[in-house]
């Protein structure tokens, strides 16, 4: 469902929906179905011996969930505002929360609006990139949250 190719399946309207959020001054979008919920920011509890962008664990209704700071990962400064939010995503290795600067909206995109894997120079690792879409007048980078949250080794060596 996180793959843009699946968007041809017109029976499920949710597959065309994307969650738009901001990190630094860049607007990103991720397939809506890849986000389980949006959480209010809560101070993570640090976990020892982890990579720099893994900043700790939080309590989500009784279960312990790891937190990845997407701001650090996408090379943006960490500054906490009232809008700072967490996206709770299910990865293959269990749930994980991602910190973003703010959550904007949910948008509909038609497959033809999306340019797959354009050869652009982005702050984001190319592997995480699903494509770039035009929304109103701005460009939105569509990223694969699953990949950007689960692929890397979290343990600092």
């Amino acid at each position, binding site marked *: 469902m996180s793959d843009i190719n699946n968007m041809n399946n017109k029976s499920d309207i949710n597959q065309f929906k994307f969650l738009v959020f901001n990190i630094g001054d860049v607007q990103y979008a991720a397939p809506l179905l890849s986000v389980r919920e949006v959480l209010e920011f809560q101070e993570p*509890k640090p*976990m*020892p011996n982890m990579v720099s962008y893994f900043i700790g664990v939080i309590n989500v209704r*009784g279960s*312990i969930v*790891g937190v990845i700071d997407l701001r650090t990962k996408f090379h943006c400064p960490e500054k906490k505002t009232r809008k700072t939010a967490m996206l709770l995503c299910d990865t293959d290795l269990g749930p994980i929360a991602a910190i973003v600067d703010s959550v904007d909206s949910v948008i509909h995109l038609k497959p033809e609006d999306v340019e797959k894997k354009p050869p652009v120079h982005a702050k984001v690792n190319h592997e995480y990139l699903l494509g770039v879409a035009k929304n109103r007048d701005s460009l939105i980078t569509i990223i694969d949250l699953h990949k950007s949250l689960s692929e890397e080794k979290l*343990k600092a060596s």
Partner: protein
Amino acid sequence: MGDFEDEMRLIFSDEANDMLQKWESINLSLSKEVKDELLQELFRLAHNLKGGSRAVGLVDFGDFVHKVEDGITLLRDKEVHTTAKIISLLLRAHKIMTEMILKARDGSNEKVEFESFFSDYEKAFELSAQIEKNIDATPSAAMFEDDVKADDLISTNLFQEEVSKKVEEIHVGQEVIKKVENYQLNIEPKKIKNETLETNKLSKNNNQETIRIPTTKLDQLTAVIGELSIHQSILWHLNSDLKISNKVFLNSLQIGQKLTKELYDRALGLRMQPIQSIFQRLERNILELSQNLKKEVEVIMLGSDVELDKLVLEKMMDPLTHIVRNAIDHGIENQIQRNESGKSAKGTITISAKQESSGVLIVVSDDGKGLAQNKILKKAQEKGLVSETAALSRDQIFSLILLPGFSTAETITDLSGRGVGMDVVSKTIEQLRGSIKIESEEGRGSSFMISLPTSLSIIDGLIIKLNSQLYVVPVDSIEEVINAVDCELDEHKTMIRLRQNVIPVQKLSHILKNRNSGQVQSSDPNSCEGVFLVAKSGREKVAFLVDDVMGQQQIVVRPLNQNISGLKGIMGGTILGNGEPGLIIDMTDILSNYMDKFRGKEIAA
């Protein structure tokens, strides 16, 4: 094959396993004393197994049971006498059936070989029938040739009257069979007291209705209740902060607290199973092994109704089997040796389980030749596991056999072989957060004492502060807690002296590093303020420095999801009373890592 049939098979295989377990226990009871009820029960079991298997289309299995059942019918109707040989064959049938059920469950079409079993089975029945016939006819003198007592009985028979003669003869015949049985079994019937206790329990269990629930459902229930109890404690903390004085509120908060605790205890209790199932399998192992080794062994089992978490039970089966095997194989001497040392010809193995405040204590003891301290010490020194000059206590010497690499093939003869795989035993027990202690007296026997926690999901934890964060340390992994101010430190602050012992010091914050903790440490690298937690593994002790100890609390252990699990030094997480997540520190892991590094340094230097 349809899904429905698959499911039916799965249900049947669960039921069959229960029945087979009963099958085993009946045969074990039969080996002590042949009783009509037991044979009746065995027949019923066979019949049910046959019916059930055919209903789900396991024709092979059904046919197998059918043939075995034919034999049991003969036993039940007293046409053939139940000999030890037949009982051991019925146990063999149990093994074959278990295997068949396992294969059927996995959906494999592989055939289990049982032709050789049936040829043995039929032979045993013919033989037994032969003896039976001899009872009916006048017993031939040849049968009693090597039995003086029986001979005496026959001679008295000769003077008896015709009518009573027949009766007496039958009696003689049975006497002989009993003798034959004892000879083959090499195991004296267990004390009657024990046995009646056991049969009582068997019938008690029968009356209880049971329902099959997948363990995942139980886990979900426990998780939800765990969550509930966390929120209860959050409420409780809030109450002390807000200082609410409404009586009704306080009252119901208190009752809520109590009910939550009870609910939690009960939910955990659902996972508990009596240790009986392990004991039964151990008994059978002993029976088989002692027969193979031709040693006479009496088994005494105590406390088989003590309950343990199902997971703990499953994990303990192999270690206990290992210890018991060692005890028979290497601990208990053969009859000649036992006679020489003035012991009864029969060895005794006692396996007991006892509920204690901190968990369950399992003791396996034998009256064999015991462990030789000198030999163990010498071997360990040869292997370089311990320095030549080290002065070790008895306990420390015995625990040497738990070290990996202690034993090799050649030590089997030298050191009665104990130590082969003992490191695996000790590792398993450590994983379950238990401990093992060995006591032994040369020539008298040895005891292995294993302490286990009752449950894996709730522990006693110390709440500690480290890098201004709260962590949990399981209480049972800590030997003692000492205030750093009260300690005698050496000038480099690398050692403390504790009651004549010098213990190395390690800052826990150096092992569990946080992102921002670097600056805090650099400000005062040599400070040694805080509290020492002394952890012990085997003979080694290390004092770990933490900032503070906040208190002690019952902790609900939550597994971490795969993203964050498997970290060195962290064994799980929990939600603390203030609602924050807390990490549980695995002291055993940290200690063993520390030791490995330390040893590595020594070698490098």
